[in-house]
């Protein structure tokens, strides 16, 4: 049997790297329904989980897959699923349940072109707003967007760490292009990987309140069946987890769920600045498009255009302050993403009119070429 952490150098796809990242993060449950282009994550987990003492279940559909993931996490294990657009739509209801029951879990969406069945084997980045608002009600979500197989490995570990630390679902919004591309992935020693676990109850079990927040707004979490009274519901609830159908309780619960993400946003944010120091134009991108953007920045610099890039590792919550800060010193923003304007509109909102915002995007199915980005940079 292979160990959970496959220390060493590998040549693997982004999908495989997500699976290895999950195993390295201590994931012990994977419930899934196969879908192109995310199937390889489930495939690898099905091959590997049993050997590390975990459980893999292929469920009857994505609704059930997400339900199984939420249940496994409530039972105390780190759990995950992976899907693509159509399956992501089916997971939205139970994603909301995980948010309201404050159940740590990780969902990878290997994006393909939609709407509906769309182009099943071809990549896109058009589920970014669904990631933000796809489930009903007002909430905050954490979403990460790796651009390479190596980053997919590390960002999956980070996704688990954030999920545990903040008792919330975390989305890995990757895409077919990263998912199916092979690259070198260096997996470090187990001892070099820092893992977070959900806050645990202290003190008398009979006094435990499952939704009484700790200092950072996150309640300690007891596993079902270990002796603490645990009551979980999708209804609006109090600190005991009991339903309370009042406007006051709704206000208290929802604002706490939102603020536990927003108040801790600087811990959740991660972005990389590339050649931005003296830049006139800031290219904003994430996922596979960040690679196009970086190539375009280098090539535009050779033409004398002072371009730089802000690459978002964390897409949600959105780094508004960073965009506004850049808006005071750049002439324009160019957002590169494989959709017809999603994060572009967020950049525009956050720039608050201080700098014009341009989109380089298309409806999906292929990578954006550096030439398209360069054309936009030249026109500014």
């Amino acid at each position: 049997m292979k160990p959970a952490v496959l220390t060493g150098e590998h040549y693997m796809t982004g999908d495989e790297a997500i699976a290895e990242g999950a195993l390295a993060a201590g994931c012990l449950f994977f419930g899934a329904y196969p879908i192109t282009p995310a199937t390889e994550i489930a495939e690898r987990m099905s091959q590997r989980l049993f050997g590390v003492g975990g459980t893999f279940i292929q469920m009857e559909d994505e609704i059930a897959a997400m339900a199984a993931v939420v249940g496994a996490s409530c039972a105390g294990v780190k759990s995950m699923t992976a899907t693509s657009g159509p399956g992501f739509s089916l997971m939205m209801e139970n994603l909301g349940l995980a948010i309201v029951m404050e159940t740590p879990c990780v969902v990878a969406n290997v994006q393909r072109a939609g709407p509906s069945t769309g182009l099943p084997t071809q990549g896109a980045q058009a589920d970014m707003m669904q990631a933000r608002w796809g489930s009903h009600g007002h909430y905050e979500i954490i979403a990460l967007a790796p651009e390479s197989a190596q980053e997919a490995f590390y960002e999956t570990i980070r996704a688990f760490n954030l999920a545990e630390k903040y008792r919330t679902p975390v989305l890995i919004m990757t895409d077919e292009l990263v998912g199916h591309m092979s690259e070198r992935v260096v997996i470090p020693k187990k001892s070099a990987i820092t893992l977070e676990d959900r806050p645990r109850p202290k003190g008398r079990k009979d006094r435990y309140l499952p939704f009484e927040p700790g200092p950072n707004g996150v309640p300690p979490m007891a596993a079902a069946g270990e002796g603490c009274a645990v009551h979980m519901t999708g209804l609006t609830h109090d600190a005991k987890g009991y339903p309370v159908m009042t406007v006051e309780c709704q206000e208290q619960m929802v604002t706490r769920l939102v603020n536990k993400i927003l108040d801790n946003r600087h811990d959740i944010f991660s972005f990389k600045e590339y050649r931005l120091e003296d830049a006139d134009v800031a290219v904003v991108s994430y996922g596979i498009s960040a690679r196009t953007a970086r190539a375009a920045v280098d090539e535009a610099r050779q033409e004398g255009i002072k371009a730089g890039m802000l690459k978002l590792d964390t897409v949600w919550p959105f780094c508004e302050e960073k965009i506004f800060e850049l808006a005071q010193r750049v002439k324009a923003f160019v957002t590169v993403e494989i959709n017809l304007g999603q994060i572009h509109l967020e950049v525009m909102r956050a720039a608050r009119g201080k700098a014009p915002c341009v989109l380089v995007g298309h409806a999906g199915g292929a990578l954006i070429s550096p030439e398209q980005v360069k054309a936009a940079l030249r026109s500014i």
Partner: protein
Amino acid sequence: MTGQETSSKKEIVVTGFGGQGIILAGRILGKAAALGDHRESTLVQSYGPESRGGACSAQVIISDGVIHYPYVRKPDILSAMSQAGYEKYADLVEEDGIILIDQDLVKPKSGKAPVFAIPSTRFAEELGRKMMANIIMIGFIVATTGAVSHQAALQTVEKSVPPGTEKKNLEAFSKGYDFGLALFKGREKKAAGQVGA
């Protein structure tokens, strides 16, 4: 990922029919470069029905620096094991590039880039397994372009083929490699002869 791309970059397209082992060939080149030669490499491939019978391709980029854009924009090396694959990419290869074909499967047109031919499928049949044509082609690519080192390619072939077939596949690799070397030596002699005359 930080750092700029370098000029040592080689962009490779391997094409053919689905089922010829085109994607495995690309994977072996990419893996040999990354894990054997300790360079950077990316592999993107046909995915879907074309990888199971239609026109199929694998795109490999090898570089000493970071690779940003993982798709081939100007191929330095085109390896074609089908006419359709050849025709799709041949015009993109410039004079300083190189085109490698299976001579029984591809009829080249006159173009900018030099064309080198090998009967890889016929050789594979002579060795007893038609499906090793891709491994013979890898040997030929390594000998004619040096895109990955001989040792890295050899080790990666050995690790990438089904258990029990290693010896046969290494033999296939050497067949393609030796044919490629001999072809180059022949050309050098011819060139030297022309100078003398």
